[in-house]
Every structure is written in C-alpha cells, then in structure tokens.
C-alpha cells in the first residue's frame, strides 16, 4: 500500500503538450478515477505512473520515493490493460506467474500466490487453459489476477471494462470494488465512462486538455461542479444549461446581480412537472425516451434552448400527459450558476 504524489508533472509528445503541470496527491488506499474525454491525457498520466512513459518535467513519487528513473517493474505497481494484454502463447497459470518468474520467486511461492489469486477470482478451473479459450470476462479476470499476484503497492487500471458487454461490465465493476475492499490497496483507474467513475471512486479527477478541471468525491462533483465542463461531464443525462431569459421567475428571486449572459445549470432530475406555466420553464416536446422507470423528455424553450427532463419518477408525475408542451419548476437548491466568460461556477 502506498501514497502517490504527482508534482508539477509535464509531458509532451514532440511539439504537442499532453499534460500541463499536473499536481495530485493520492492517499494510501484511496480509489482514484481519472476521467475525461478522449485525448485529455488521462491514460498518459496513468502510463507515467506506471513508468511506461517518462515525464518531461516534475516528478512522481510512490510512498515518498521519487520513481522517475525507476523501471516499471521495480516501482511496485501493477497494471491492467484495456486489451487485457495477456500472453496468448501461455496458459492462464503461466500468464499470472510470468512476473513472479522474472523476479526469481521460488516455485512453491509462485504456485501459492497464483492459486490464491485464482481462488479469489474464480479462475482455479481455468488455470491450464490458454487465453484463446476464455471469454472476455474471464480474460479480464486473468489480467486482474496477473496484477494481484505481484502484490503491488498501487494498482493501475487503464479502461479495463471498455471491451466487455454491458452486463459483464457491471459485474466486473462490482468485482473490482470488492477487490479494493478486500485488499485496501491504492488503486488508480482510468475511464471515459462517468458511471464507472461515479460508482467506483473515492475521488474523481476530471481532466481536459491535459489539465485537471476538478478533483473531488463523486458527490462533490455532482453537487458542486467547479465549472461548465465538469457540470456537463458528470451526470447522465447531462446537465441542462439555460439562458437567464428561459427562467425569468428564478432570476427574479435571485438577489445578487448577474451578468447578462450568466448560464444557469439544472440537472434533468431536478426539474419537476407543474401545471402552472408561469413558475419555471416551459418547453415544447420534441421527443421522449421511455426507460420504464422514468421517461426522458427532450424539449425546446421559446428562446430555442434545448433541455432534457426526467419525467414520471414520482407518483405526482405519473399521470403527466405527454402532450405538446410541458412546464417544470426548478428546485432552488439544485441550481448552478456559471460565469459566461470563465465558465466557472458562481455559487
């Protein structure tokens, strides 16, 4: 178990700077998820910690020891790759044992550790198979097993679930959570899937264009997004952004002075249907998506702002007539105000 410190780390490939002065402190035993759109530098940051890339400036330390010049295998980190990266010509046992063999671990110890990991992951009956004869989920478990047997100080996961189908993804996600609970090891996890990020993380680090946009607990990111980007990235469906003219009633109740183009953010789940069209926001229905538990209504205001609302979650909504136009009240406690120029959250 170990803490990880990333101190003013910079990385560029040729002319292109992919990480700008990243500073991050990851506590011992913490589960941290790097999330962001593709090309934001999240995988590069993970690979820097793994030692598969070298930073151009700054330093990375694990447990207080600077590891910039230490080989990947000597850093005490294990990585699970997106493509699993199993050795196709070796059996499951040998896949898991490869790292230990390289380190010269005695044979009895290798056997003990591999069978223990196989036991934990339910792979015992598959040890003699080759990766080709395994399903996607099983391969992923072997990849995790390979990481476990080395008993690393830090686990690194690079989008480990993106090659699995939806059902298996949920199941494997739970397994990773269980693993973290059982081992208590520091884990760093990269994904572009915000649901994975929200469910797994103790702390989420949102990256964009090689910079950290916000770092905080899933709750913080959901309730207090630092800026427009984080607000739109976290939450599904994504947050609605209104102009002041869309919500005159709300703006009138607001006491502070506001810039003309201030943006109002309201999540789809914080809009409630009301028969009174004067109170909140009214929109013309464009289309609906019925998801069983609730219905997603896609609407457009008279000012031409598109927004989405979750309808039918509570009993009062149940009888909602999904006709041409719908009005919603806005929960004052769940309104986010953003500065139009900087995109930063005002309140």
């Amino acid at each position: 178990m170990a803490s990880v410190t990333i101190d003013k780390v910079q990385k560029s490939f040729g002319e292109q700077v992919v990480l700008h002065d990243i500073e991050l402190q990851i506590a011992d035993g913490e589960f941290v998820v790097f999330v962001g759109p593709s090309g934001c530098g999240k995988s590069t940051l993970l690979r820097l910690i793994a030692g598969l890339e070298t930073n151009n400036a700054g330093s990375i330390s694990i447990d207080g020891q600077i590891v910039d010049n230490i080989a990947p295998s000597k850093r005490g980190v294990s990585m699970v790759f997106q493509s699993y990266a199993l050795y196709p010509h070796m059996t499951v046992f040998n896949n898991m044992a490869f790292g230990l063999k390289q380190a010269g671990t005695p044979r009895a110890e290798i056997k003990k550790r591999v069978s223990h990991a196989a036991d934990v992951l339910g792979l015992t009956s598959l040890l003699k198979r080759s990766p080709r004869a395994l399903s996607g989920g099983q391969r992923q478990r072997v990849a995790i097993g390979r990481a476990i047997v080395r008993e690393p100080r830090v686990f690194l996961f690079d989008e480990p679930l993106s090659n699995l189908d939806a059902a298996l993804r949920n199941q494997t996600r739970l397994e990773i959570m269980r693993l973290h609970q059982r081992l208590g090891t520091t884990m760093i996890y990269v994904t572009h899937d915000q649901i994975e990020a929200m469910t797994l993380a103790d702390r989420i680090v949102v990256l964009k264009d090689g910079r950290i946009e916000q770092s905080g607990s899933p709750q913080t990111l959901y309730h207090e997004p630092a800026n427009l980007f984080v607000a739109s990235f976290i939450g599904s469906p994504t947050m609605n952004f209104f102009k002041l003219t869309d919500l005159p009633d709300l703006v009138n109740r607001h006491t502070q002075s506001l810039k003309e183009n201030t943006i109002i953010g309201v999540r789809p789940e914080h809009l409630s249907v009301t028969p009174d069209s004067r109170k909140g926001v009214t929109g013309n229905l464009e289309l609906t998506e019925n998801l069983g538990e609730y219905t997603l209504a896609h609407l457009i205001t008279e000012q031409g702002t598109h927004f989405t609302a979750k309808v039918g979650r509570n009993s009062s909504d149940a009888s909602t007539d999904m006709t041409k136009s719908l009005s919603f009240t806005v929960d004052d406690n769940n309104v986010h105000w953003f500065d139009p120029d900087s995109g930063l959250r005002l309140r």
Partner: protein
Amino acid sequence: MNELQKKNLSNNLLTVTAWVCACLMFFPIFWMVLTSFKTELQAIAVPPKLVFKPTLENFFLIQERTSYTRYAWSSIVTSVGGTLLAMLIAIPAAYAMAFHPGRQTKGILLWMLSTKMLPAVGVLMPVYLICQKFGLLDTKIALVVIFALINLPIIMMMLFNYFREIPGEILEAARMDGATVGREVTQIVMPLSRGGIASTVLLSIVLLWNESFWSLNLTSSDAGTLVALVASFSSPEGLFWAKVSAVSTLACAPIVVLGWLTQKQLVQGLSFGAIK
C-alpha cells in the same frame, strides 16, 4: 446471356488460364525429370520420345563421377548456416525497429531493401579479393557469411512486418512484469511470431539453396554447392542432356520436397504477412 452465366464464363476462363500458366511453368520441370531417365540418344531424338524404357544409368554415373552427397552437404550447410546467421542478426534488429522505431526507421528499412536491387557483380571483385586475402576462397564459411548478408534485407523486412503485428500492450505488460529486453524477445516476441519466423527461415533456405552467382564464383570442388555441381556438367565437349537433366533433378529434389512439406508456411511467407 444473363449476369450469372457471364460470371460463370469469366470464372471458367480464369480457371483455364490458371491451368495453362501452371502447365507452362511445370513443363520444363516435367521434361527435366523425364529426360533424366532417358539414354543420351533418346534425349536428343527428334521427334522427342514420350514413351521409352526408363533407365537409372545417368544417376549412377553421376554418383560415380562426382560426389553428389558432398555437394548436397555443402548446399545444406551453406543455406541453413547462412539463414541462421542472418536470423541471429535480423531478430534483434527487427525487434528494435518494430518496437522502438526512430524517425529514420522506415528510411533505413527501405535503404536496406534497396541494396537488393544492386547487381551483385558490382561487388564481386572486392568480395573475391577479401576472400582470397583471408584464405576463404572455396570455403563454406565464406559462403555462409555472404549468404547471410545477401538475405539479411529481405529477412529483416519480413520479420519487421511479422513483429509489428504483435500488440504493443503485450510487450508493455511484459515490461511491467519485469522482463528484460532479452526475455521480451525470446519469451514473448519469438514465440508469438513463430509462424512468421518459420516462413522466413524456409523462404531464406529456398532462396539460398538456389543461389548461383556467389556459389559459382567463390567455390569450386571443396565447398561447391549443388548449383556448382550442375554447372560443372556443361563441359567443353558439349552438353549431355540426359546427365544434365539427372543432376538438375537431384539438385532440385531436396528443396522441392521441403517446399512441398511446408507449402502452407511458404505461401504465408511469400505474401509478406498480408494474409493471416
């Protein structure tokens, strides 16, 4: 004629063309083998005889007059030796180029391959003189070294292409697992491209078995290969067709058998990893 009939017709035409081409290519070989079982008189008979009483006389004569086995051994040693030596150099080189490419990697590969386009006779003099100076004329060592060098570009190119098909993440996983470069090559890269390596080795052996320029110019009786043996049958007294055919058949036979046994790998090798 409707579309389907048209398609069938063109398919049939293609099949016929393929057969004609194949027969054209096979005919000389067929004629060579046939002639090797004729007497000298039958061999030059006009019109040529297709039905005759076969004789093994030519083959016995060759073994009597020369030492077929010695030449064959020389062919085996030089083609296999040259291939192995080239592989020894090419595997690490192709590994470096495939997995740690620099800005010039592509250029270097192309340049290496372009040396294959130069006429070998251009360097005959210096190579001959070097061999003479070091007392390597008519030795198998000289042929092994030269064979390795002339095949190196094509072996490099093939291995480079095969190695590049290995996903980089697998090698990164090995690096995370603490594998040294040597183990990365021997325990990951080589086992994963063993099919490609086999194709490359086979193709190289075939090419070197048939190599004639350097074998003829740098060897005579001591290190002569089967190619040299065949050439020695063109004597000043004229060609003895039946004997030339017999010795050519003997020279071709081993490599044809090898090719037949390994045709799957060979086709894969010749298509440069394009099909998998």
